[in-house]
């Protein structure tokens, strides 16, 4: 690779970019103006609400047989406020006025008054609480045991009067007022409590008994560092991605459209040099725009348009600065690499832009990893690109520089960036991509060819529907309807639709072919070892992605439903065994078989199958099972073994649960043994294979 050529192409690109005045304006001037306006707008909204809450004279009603006592409590609290240094901050500006209303609830709902207070004396409260409990019992069929006996303040004790403040949660200002009223009443109560203690002749302030105080050892710099560190990567990533996109979309995709790429490819510059130069151009522009934006941001911070938290202090040691550079430079290179890849893949400027938006949105998620509490750098996160920088940058800014993990992150991101560049350079070899030729449009294709070219659309939409339906349709939230819908409507339905829509031959599309009779015993023998292999994978996965304790309980809960056992086997074993196999080892395998080599095909189908299990704690296990079943389907050329294995596996899992097999405590060596047995059985199938026909 010759640097002089790279520099030459780099200069050419930068020069043509600068000559496009509109691009410069749109990408630099507009965001510079936009940021303050957006900041002002959000500040305006927040301040407006704050002012409203401070200036509103709240109107409320009091009902109940204890109303007078509440009024006294309010008055006492109000009169104590001015002289008390410990008064709650929220009560500084609290203007409120009692009004009388016949039906206070209706008045609140109609917006006539802001909230109302319902006060019940001991007897009335006891009565009401007993009623509520009876109601709960009716609903759940269970009473909360010992609720009333618990010596806690978390629930109302017998004989204690009750004050309840009712507010409309859908009106922010009114709810804020109600909350202030709650604070006021609590303040009054705590004063009365102190008085109670004083009456019994004790000088100790109630508040001070076994008082718990929190002391943070973190310096202001570290606390501020944490605050910045949570969002630094996200902000920088957004800026570099948006900044780089200005030139990236036009870079390869635009050149293809204009035909200059072909000109460039006939010159003595090598593909690597062209890609290298383009990558550098995107990097340069991204960095320049990011710097301008950061400067802009600092400017508005100094103007106080962006408020900083109190005690803000920021300092950066040389080592920390170096660590940040080591983190962000590979990230910027990676970002540029992603953009360049989009551009290399797209045939035109328009198309490149189309891909940009989803990539942008999805890229923001790992970049936000640092904002999430509880992610430690020394975990699986260190090998997740972008996310590792996000977490590491936060650590560095709070004064902890873990050089080893920074090195890991640097290596991962650099390798990925390099791989992307290699891949982009490879795309320049693809004649259909470089010359911007229109290949046969899918509309002109028919039958299997049309299905092959549109297969991803089907499965992506299917995936989205599967996910959205479970989340969005309340009728499907129960286990049984959801399962029936997923299996029959989505998996089986889509496969039937595909067959009809493209006019496919069902026997070919679903691989409905007989299997050598001699293989059946091997296939059936494979069920149990595969199940144990899946357990092994699950254990392994759990060390990398430990599942939260709540998750496993939730899963167990989902799988338990009242009903006869045969229904359980039918719904969880037979139905998925048939429907999912038709969808994955049938249609999907059929549609993808020409796009990949057999090994890649096995892995791809397996992974897709894994992703349809949604939860990250199940993807790996399901993926491995999917790979195994796909391999069997490819080696027997038939769907049937898959159905038997899938069905058998699920049935076995149910049986383990029913029979109380201690799956969690099974010895790992047993599982490893089962894995070896699976391999051996697969090898037997391989030796007696009937390859999947490529027709």
């Amino acid at each position: 690779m010759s640097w002089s050529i790279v520099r030459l192409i780099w200069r050419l690109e930068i020069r043509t970019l600068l000559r496009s005045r509109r691009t410069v304006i749109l990408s630099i001037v507009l965001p510079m103006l936009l940021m303050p306006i957006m900041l002002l707008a959000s500040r305006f909204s927040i301040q407006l609400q704050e002012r409203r809450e401070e200036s509103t004279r709240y109107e409320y009603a009091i009902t109940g047989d204890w109303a007078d006592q509440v009024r006294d409590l309010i008055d006492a609290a109000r009169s104590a406020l001015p002289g008390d240094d410990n008064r709650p901050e929220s009560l500084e500006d609290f203007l409120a006025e009692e009004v009388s209303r016949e039906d206070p609830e209706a008045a609140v709902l109609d917006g006539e008054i802001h909230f109302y207070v319902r006060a019940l004396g001991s007897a009335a409260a006891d009565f009401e609480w007993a009623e509520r409990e009876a109601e709960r019992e009716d609903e759940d069929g269970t009473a909360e045991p010992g609720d009333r006996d618990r010596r806690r303040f978390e629930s109302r004790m017998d004989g204690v009067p009750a004050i309840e403040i009712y507010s409309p949660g859908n009106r922010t200002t009114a709810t804020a007022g109600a909350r202030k009223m709650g604070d006021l009443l609590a303040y009054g109560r705590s004063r009365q409590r102190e008085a109670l203690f004083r009456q019994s002749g004790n000088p100790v302030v109630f508040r001070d008994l076994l008082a718990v105080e929190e002391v943070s050892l973190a310096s202001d710099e570290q606390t501020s560092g944490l605050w910045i560190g949570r969002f630094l990567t996200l902000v920088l990533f957004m800026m570099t991605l948006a900044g780089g996109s200005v030139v990236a979309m036009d870079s390869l995709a635009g050149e293809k459209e204009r035909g200059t790429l072909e000109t460039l490819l006939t010159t003595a510059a090598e593909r690597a040099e062209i890609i290298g130069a383009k990558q550098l151009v995107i990097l340069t522009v991204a960095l320049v725009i990011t710097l301008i934006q950061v400067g802009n941001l600092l400017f508005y911070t100094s103007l106080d348009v962006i408020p900083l938290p109190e005690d803000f202090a920021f300092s950066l040691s040389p080592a920390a600065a170096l660590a940040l550079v080591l983190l962000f430079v590979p990230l910027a290179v990676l970002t540029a690499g992603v953009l360049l890849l989009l551009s290399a893949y797209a045939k035109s400027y328009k198309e490149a832009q189309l891909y940009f938006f989803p990539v942008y949105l999805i890229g923001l998620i790992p970049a936000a990893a640092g904002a999430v509490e509880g992610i430690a750098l020394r975990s699986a996160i260190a090998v997740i690109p972008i996310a590792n920088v996000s977490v590491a940058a936060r650590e560095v800014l709070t004064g902890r520089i873990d050089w080893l993990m920074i090195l890991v992150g640097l290596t991962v991101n650099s390798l990925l960036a390099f791989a992307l560049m290699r891949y982009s350079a490879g795309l320049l070899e693809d004649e259909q991509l470089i010359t911007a030729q229109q290949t046969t449009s899918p509309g002109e294709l028919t039958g299997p060819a049309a299905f092959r070219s549109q297969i991803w659309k089907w499965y992506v939409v299917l995936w989205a529907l599967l996910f959205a339906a479970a989340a969005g349709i309340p009728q499907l939230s129960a286990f049984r309807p959801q399962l029936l819908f997923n299996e029959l409507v989505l998996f089986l339905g889509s496969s039937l639709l595909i067959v009809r829509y493209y006019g496919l031959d069902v026997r070919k599309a679903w691989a409905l072919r007989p299997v050598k009779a001699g293989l059946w015993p091997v296939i059936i023998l494979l069920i149990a070892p595969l199940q144990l292999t899946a357990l092994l994978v699950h254990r392994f996965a759990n060390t990398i992605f430990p599942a939260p304790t709540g998750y496993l309980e939730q899963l167990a809960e989902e799988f338990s439903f009242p009903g006869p056992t045969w229904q359980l086997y039918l719904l969880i074993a037979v139905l998925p065994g048939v429907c999912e196999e038709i969808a994955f080892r049938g249609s999907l395998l059929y549609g993808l078989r020409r796009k990949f080599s057999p090994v890649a095909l096995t892995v791809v189908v397996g992974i897709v199958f894994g992703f349809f299990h949604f939860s990250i704690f199940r993807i790996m296990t399901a993926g491995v099972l999917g790979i195994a079943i796909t391999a069997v389907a490819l080696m027997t050329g038939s769907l049937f073994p898959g159905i038997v294995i899938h069905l058998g596996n699920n049935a076995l899992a149910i049986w383990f649960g029913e029979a109380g097999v201690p799956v969690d405590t099974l010895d790992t060596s047993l599982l490893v043994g089962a894995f070896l047995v699976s391999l051996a059985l697969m090898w037997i199938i391989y030796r007696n294979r009937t390859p999947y026909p490529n027709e």
Partner: protein
Amino acid sequence: MNDRLRQIGILYVRELRSALRERNIVVNSILLPIVLYPAILWLVYSAISFVAGQSDVLSSRVMLRNLPVEHRQILLDLEERNSVELTTLENPEVAIRRGELDLLVRFEAPDHPDDAFPDNFAVELVYDGSKDRSRTARARLTDQLDDYRLDYLIDTAGAIGIRPATLQLVWIDMRNIASGTDMGRFILGLLVPMFLIIMLSVGCIYPAIDSTAGERENSTWETLMTVATDRSNILLAKYFYVATMSFTAGMLNLAAMTFSLKAVLRPLAGDALDDLSIELPLGAIPVIVLGAALMALFIAAGMMILASFARTFKEGQSMIGPFYIALFLPVMFIQAPDIAFTPVLAAIPVVNVAMMFREAIAGVYQWPLIGITVAVELLAVSLALLLASRILQHEEFLLGGYTGGLGRFIKDRFFKRPRSRTREDQS
């Protein structure tokens, strides 16, 4: 007239059909809303469960110093917890700073010891606020110590003759009388107006540029101008097509978002959302459809006027950019939750539709204000169309000879009439 409508109809169907065959438009307006929301949802959901798993496994390393015998129960309780690991170190403060210890619980006798409460101690939780693990440890211990303290207070009060119920004094609770439906509408009311306006615009950008600048780029513009029908028919058909695409994209996105919103909120808010019902009220749908249609017509007109000055797709995009931003910036100023819909707001285009959406979602219909909104929007659309018809009178523009944007055109044609005449005469 009938014939004219038929002509527009034919042209409109042709535009729509070729749009549906264009991969970019299909992906952008139809596939993206269906797939993108679930995909993002899934990523967020996975990230949350990943983090939950990570922090569940991470135990908190805690050291107790000077634990008084009276409060030994704290130690016993902690020993039972899996998530807490008790250690003893020489120099715990330094260890906390180094990240080797997460929390130090320090017990100290109070400054003024009192004979009546010999077991009263001051408790300090020493942690590092810049470390997540340390903060988690603090949160875990705070909960536990609060529980313990309550028990202690009740016991202590009991010892001096104060019954627990007397100590509790009065039970204070906050209750929300808004129903799950109301809360769902409240959340939708905050999100939908801005979102819908952005989506209507996004859905409009591509067709608007493609049907104007794009046609110039592909040189099909001239072909179209030679068709045996009135030019205004062609442009009206294009206009309705762009508005249709904008409207469709807006509605699809809205449906996809409301559909998946609850699933996004669930892992964030937990059980609190069980009663929440995120559904658009049926009564609001006609108002939303009306508002969205008006906005689509307005946005389509604005964008097509701007884009028709461009000669390439890219140029069209940069011409539309500022208009797109100008559309949603004003809406950002009304993001505060309790802003009231007033006649003044009803007179501001775009903002009025956003307010109308919000009120309709909350189930409030102020018909006079809705009337003003519709009238103002119709006026805005008519003005845009009027401007378009004025622009179209210029042959030079129609045939693609004009180079420059809308700003220069208005300056040239409407303000410097004499000078531009002479230029025309010369050429």
